[in-house]
């Protein structure tokens, strides 16, 4: 009997390395995780990136500023509008252009709609990762309604390219306000359904509560932002601290929790959907009249210098850093993408948990792989 225990003891010391990805349904794209296991316990997670590295930053150096907008869509495609906004705000800041109030308000509404649909998709896929396929159907059913609003106004479903330096590509559709209001009315009724399905589910709570804890100190030292950081108590909402567009004229709460586990990362997103609806409620009835874009020069040239603008995407803080040498295309452009930074904390968060928990933890980070690799 004793011998048997000994032999198993020897076997357990061996680390077993498995490869999760690049093609794996729960890595949400082409992320490759090299996982060292001891039995079923995760010892080390090593993310390998670059499977969708398209060289966007380098490409940006050879194209003009209005063209860059269309590439930023394809980075974090679930926060497409907010990415556009980041570049536009940076260019406008560099040129010192005052944009009309109408543009600011419309941009904010669009950004909040973006946040809602992104969190809806998170809810859908997170439920699916944990084995609840129903969530997938509910989440995407409601997401289509936002896409319909966009399609009417922007002409595109997901990759909107709606902002451009100096304003918007075109004015909103006459139906826009009515349809957004209809959606808010509908979604306020539907959101409790989400809670009934998943938040209160015993299996779901068992699988997420206390899993993948991230302390406040670690969150700050890793630079984790967005819902992941706010679940750990790190108050990092750029909308609050550095208000851009119309965020300085609306009242909203920053959703903060202190637990920092998978369950609370999920809760932050659920609450943020409610906050986003509140923001839209405050703005939708009083969109100011005026121009939808400022007349810009046909060729936009930024004055020499360095410019930085940060915005809050659905996943955290996106920073756009432009170095200009006075030409029509940037000398260097750098995106500080939230996903890349959040991914760094994955190893620390998943150490000591089971491999099935790794799926829950990486799902709760809500990673978008093209944003990591760019």
């Amino acid at each position: 009997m004793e011998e048997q225990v000994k032999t198993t003891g020897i076997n357990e010391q061996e680390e077993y390395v498995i490869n999760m990805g690049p093609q794996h349904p729960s890595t949400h794209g082409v992320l490759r995780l090299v996982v060292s296991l001891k039995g079923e316990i995760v010892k080390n997670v090593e993310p390998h990136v670059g499977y969708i590295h398209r060289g966007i930053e380098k490409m940006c150096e050879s194209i003009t500023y209005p063209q860059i907008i269309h590439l930023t869509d394809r980075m974090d495609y679930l926060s497409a509008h907010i990415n556009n906004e980041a570049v536009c705000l940076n260019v406008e800041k560099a040129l010192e252009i005052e944009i009309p109030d109408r543009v600011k308000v419309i941009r904010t509404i669009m950004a909040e709609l973006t946040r809602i649909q992104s969190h809806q998709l998170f809810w859908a896929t997170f439920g699916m990762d944990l084995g609840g396929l129903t969530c997938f159907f509910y989440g995407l059913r409601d997401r289509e309604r936002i896409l319909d609003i966009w399609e009417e106004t922007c002409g595109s479903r997901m990759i909107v390219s709606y902002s451009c330096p100096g304003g918007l590509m075109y004015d909103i559709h006459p139906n826009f306000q009515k349809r957004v209001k209809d959606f808010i009315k509908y979604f306020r009724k539907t959101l409790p359904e989400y809670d009934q399905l998943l938040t209160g589910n015993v299996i779901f709570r068992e699988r997420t509560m206390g899993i993948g804890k991230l302390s406040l100190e670690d969150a700050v030292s890793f630079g984790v932002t967005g819902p992941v950081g706010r679940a750990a108590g790190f108050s990092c909402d750029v909308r609050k601290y550095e208000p851009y567009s119309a965020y300085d004229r609306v009242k909203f709460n920053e959703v903060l929790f202190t637990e920092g586990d998978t369950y609370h990362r999920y809760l932050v997103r659920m609450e943020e959907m409610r906050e986003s609806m509140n923001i839209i409620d405050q703005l939708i009835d009083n969109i100011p009249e005026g121009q939808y874009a400022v007349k810009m020069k046909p060729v936009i040239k930024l004055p020499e210098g360095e410019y930085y603008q940060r915005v809050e995407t659905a996943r955290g803080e996106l920073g756009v850093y432009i170095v200009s040498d006075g030409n029509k295309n940037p000398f260097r452009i750098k995106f500080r993408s939230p996903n890349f930074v959040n991914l760094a904390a994955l190893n620390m968060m998943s150490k000591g948990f089971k491999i099935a928990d790794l799926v829950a933890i990486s799902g709760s980070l809500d990673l978008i792989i093209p944003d990591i690799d760019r």
Partner: protein
Amino acid sequence: MKKEEFKDNESLELLRKSGTNILLTTVDSVINWGRKNSLWPLTFATSCCGIEMMATGAPRHDFARFGMEVYRASPRQADVIVVAGTIVNKMAPVLKRLYDQMSEPKYVVAMGACAISGGPFFLNSYSVVKGVEHVIPVDVYVPGCPPRPEALLYGMLQLQRKIETENIKSRKKRIAEHSTK
């Protein structure tokens, strides 16, 4: 496009010219009917098109109406690989291996501008594969950036039509062509 106008398939023309016997044609049509109505796609998405692919499987557009309901996570169980998104140089060998792992009959749908030609990353990018046909043979191209779910559905229906026209000869020829590539 009507079914009668679907002439760009070699096998269809071959079939008409050679006039194969009735028995073989009947067997073929039965096999093809079975194959075309249970196309199981692989969950393979690299970027934005993947979200539209998910939307195609979601309630509004509902893939399952045409027999493509089950997304398979393993290439060994999948019939069709929908290349949804950009393929970069680092990913190309992985895609090739995934394709090789699939068992015959296997089909490829290139979804979106990136998979067709590199799309928005055609110029100035140092790492993007300019079209997935450099790596694996493609059956159907679905243009768009990203294509609408309806477009993907149409592409999949076209693939079904293509399968309908297959016979033993063309199937053997196809396998031989693909294995040399």
